């Protein structure tokens, strides 16, 4: 397989008046097509900034992002984002929220009826078709996040970017949604890049885990392969030795070598 998404020598420096803070330094990463990669690190290490750079919502100070060998520095539906707080538009129904992206992306290639069918197809994928006419305020947090995933999937992104997608959910809902995302990845073969701070989530879902050092000047500290066969089952993995070893490695990285230091 060839390189699909490439982060090349990314540095990010925030300037606030005379003060400058180097947030990210020397970020190099290549991701293959169909891979599920997680980025894990303590809060404030710049992992969300990195995701925003890939999404094109922020620009890197130096270096760049290559998707299929082409540089991308503007946001676009080929790198659809599932935002941490769902970011559904409250004045639109579930259906209309998904349709917003679909209508733009497939304006020329699909007819109106086809686009509507495609919206419903994607709502079906996340089991939200029943709520098509509800507004975001009428559905639960987990459901909102499902719709957020449907909205991103419906744009047929080359890379799906997940920004702590399960962070705001309770543990049971989170597990349920993780299983759904695993099933979708299995079924559709998307390339997925996920930001997380949950060790179990990273090991369970990812093919590779990118561990970031603490900021400022956060770097990629270590990249861990997770050699677990798919489909993965949450319960079976609980006693799986490979799973436990991977988990151990990530925990050691986060809590021994790069312990979170509270900013003074």
């Amino acid at each position, binding site marked *: 397989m060839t390189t699909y998404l490439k982060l090349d020598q990314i540095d990010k420096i925030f300037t606030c008046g005379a003060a400058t803070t180097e947030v990210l330094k020397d970020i190099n990463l290549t991701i293959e097509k169909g891979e599920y990669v997680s980025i894990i690190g303590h809060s404030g290490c710049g992992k969300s900034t990195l995701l925003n750079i890939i999404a*094109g919502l922020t620009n890197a100070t130096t270096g760049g992002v290559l998707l299929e060998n082409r540089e991308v520095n503007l946001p676009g539906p080929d790198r659809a984002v599932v935002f941490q707080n769902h970011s559904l538009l*409250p004045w639109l129904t579930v259906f209309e929220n998904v349709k917003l992206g679909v209508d*733009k992306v497939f304006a020329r290639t699909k007819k109106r009826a086809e686009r509507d069918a495609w919206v419903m197809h994607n709502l079906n994928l996340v089991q939200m078709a029943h709520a098509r006419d509800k507004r975001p305020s009428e559905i639960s947090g987990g459901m909102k996040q499902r719709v957020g995933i449907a909205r991103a999937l419906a744009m047929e992104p080359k890379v799906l970017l997940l920004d702590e997608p399960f962070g705001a959910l309770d543990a049971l809902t989170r597990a349920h949604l993780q299983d759904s995302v695993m099933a979708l990845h299995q079924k559709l073969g998307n390339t997925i890049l996920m930001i997380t701070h949950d060790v179990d989530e990273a090991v369970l879902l990812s093919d590779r885990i990118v561990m970031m050092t603490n900021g400022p000047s956060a770097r990629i500290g270590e990249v861990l392969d997770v050699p677990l066969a798919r489909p993965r089952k949450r319960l079976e993995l609980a006693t799986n030795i490979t799973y436990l070893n991977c988990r151990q490695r990530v925990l050691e990285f986060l809590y021994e070598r790069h312990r979170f230091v509270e900013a003074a």
Partner: protein
Amino acid sequence: MNMSATKIEVETATPVAVAAPVVAMTLRRPPRAETYARIARETAVRVIPPLVVIALLALVWELACRRGGSALPPPSKVFRDTKELIFDPFFDHGGIDKGLFWHLSASLQRVALGYSLSAIAGIALGVLVGQSVWAMRGLDPLFQVLRTIPPLAWLPLSLAAFRDGQPSAIFVIFITSIWPIIINTAVGIRNIPQDYRNVAAVVQLNPLEFFAKIMIPAAAPYIFTGLRIGIGLSWLAIIAAEMLIGGVGIGFFIWDAWNSSHISEIILALFYVGIVGFMLDRLIAGLGKIVTRGTAQN
């Protein structure tokens, strides 16, 4: 409303269901009479207190102004003096000798025109100032100074410019009501969450789509606050402006009544001005409620 209706349903049905499940089926819905009684009760709770207060105030007013030599007429005299005006608002004897309906409708037409113009211009300028930092830096200080100028201070200038009462009055309404619309719209635009902007960026909405699909719905609650303040101000301004420009209109009607010492007519006109102002406010508030239905944060 719905919530309380279902609640009552449950409350009445449950005890019966415990005692005898068979009967519970027939008592699913409360009897129609009971529903009407509840609605009547709820209406009474809202309507009776203000009626009591009004009755008390009228009584105090009557007692205070009833003695001879009082400068202002008591309510009973106001009613006697203005009976014709109240019961026949549609007469038209030519000139400015018309029923109150015509005066009010002339004022409302001016407000409708001036206010519509200021709503359009105000929202457009508000979007500009809210969206562009440079537009804000350039225009905001100007707005902050101009908005403190009282409505009537604009009137001589606009009379000089337009050389006619009608456009001058409309301009005064425009210039009075535009500031809160601009300022509230700008605040609404500036407060659009970054999340929504990110969504728009990822979906690649063009500026026009962003304006229609994100900006206006997201800022609608703020915009309607501005529109509501604006309609109140334009109603304030038109009364004052009409006193000076003359012609048909409720403002000049009041001034004319004062010049002819018809104090009762002034009082009647004030009632109408208050009620129309209240209805205008409710109209915009209701419109806002419909438009911003889904915008409430969740």
